[in-house]
């Protein structure tokens, strides 16, 4: 992870984020008109948000609708002194799309996305078993994604007009 100076966000930044979370391709002209500032201001702010690592705009798909048939959460118990090594090894696996270090009953939680169940079996049996320090895993196979959003409550309120979901 890059280390970046924390950026103090003002109301305008939060409003910009609120709109772009909903529609990442909203034009700067539209944003400027919505927020009552110049297009140049929007452009500068967005650039600053991107450069400081706060904002990244990207296309996101529902993997299950795209033919990637297997999404799973894997919960890990790990020997404490091997934790960093296990993280490094898991990060290198392409199937691991999201990996977090956690407190609670488990030390790590990973979301994996794979084309089929066979490859999940391979991942669990062949790849994970080679990583030293993993004590145990539990696997939850995702049957259906009910909600997958990238906008969070605190920013929603910064949108003056509620944009309806498609």
């Amino acid at each position, binding site marked *: 992870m890059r280390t970046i100076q924390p950026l103090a966000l003002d109301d305008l930044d939060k409003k910009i984020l609120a709109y772009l979370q909903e529609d990442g*391709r909203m034009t700067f002209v539209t944003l400027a008109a919505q927020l009552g500032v110049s297009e140049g201001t929007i452009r500068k702010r967005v650039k600053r948000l991107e450069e400081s690592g706060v904002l990244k705009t990207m296309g996101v798909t529902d993997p299950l609708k795209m033919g990637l048939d297997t999404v799973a959460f894997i919960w890990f118990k790990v020997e404490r002194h091997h934790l960093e090594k296990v993280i490094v090894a898991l990060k290198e696996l392409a199937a691991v799309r999201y990996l977090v270090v956690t407190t609670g009953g488990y030390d790590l939680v990973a979301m994996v996305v794979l084309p089929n169940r066979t490859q999940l079996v391979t991942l669990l049996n062949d790849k994970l078993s080679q990583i030293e320090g993993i004590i145990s895993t539990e696997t939850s196979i995702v049957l259906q994604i009910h909600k997958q959003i990238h906008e969070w409550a605190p920013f929603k309120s910064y949108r003056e007009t509620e944009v309806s979901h498609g």
Partner: protein
Amino acid sequence: MTGFVIDEFDREIIRLLQQDGRMPFLTIANQLGLAEGTVRRRVAKLRSEGLLKIVGIADPFKVGLQTVAIVGLKVERGRIESIAREVSALTEVRYVALSTGNYDLVIEVVVSNNDELLTFLVDKLSEIPGINNTGTSIVLKVAKEDLAWDV
């Protein structure tokens, strides 16, 4: 489920937008040898079919949302769909999946601090009937987040 079938051009367009959601349609068109209007129409179709969303993703830890938790829920079997709907309606929840295994539902919660997480767990989640058991893992660090999976 949708009956819409995507082709290789759609996949290429998605791959480019995974890298940069604001890539101009003209740039995409030039890279793929398509007309700009064709790219525009295909993107509109992918978005309206629910296959593609183009979103600005804010790093929660950089915008003052300090607490992220992954919560597994065990629920009464017959109520799983209604509980998934109720949980999805909560604004703190950004991800809800139905799953097999040790939990029936896996959700991700993003809030400002641990107090808000407590309020969420005690006041909101426990208000939903049919949830028998929850396991909460508080995220200490995001080691990897790459939503641009191969399409």
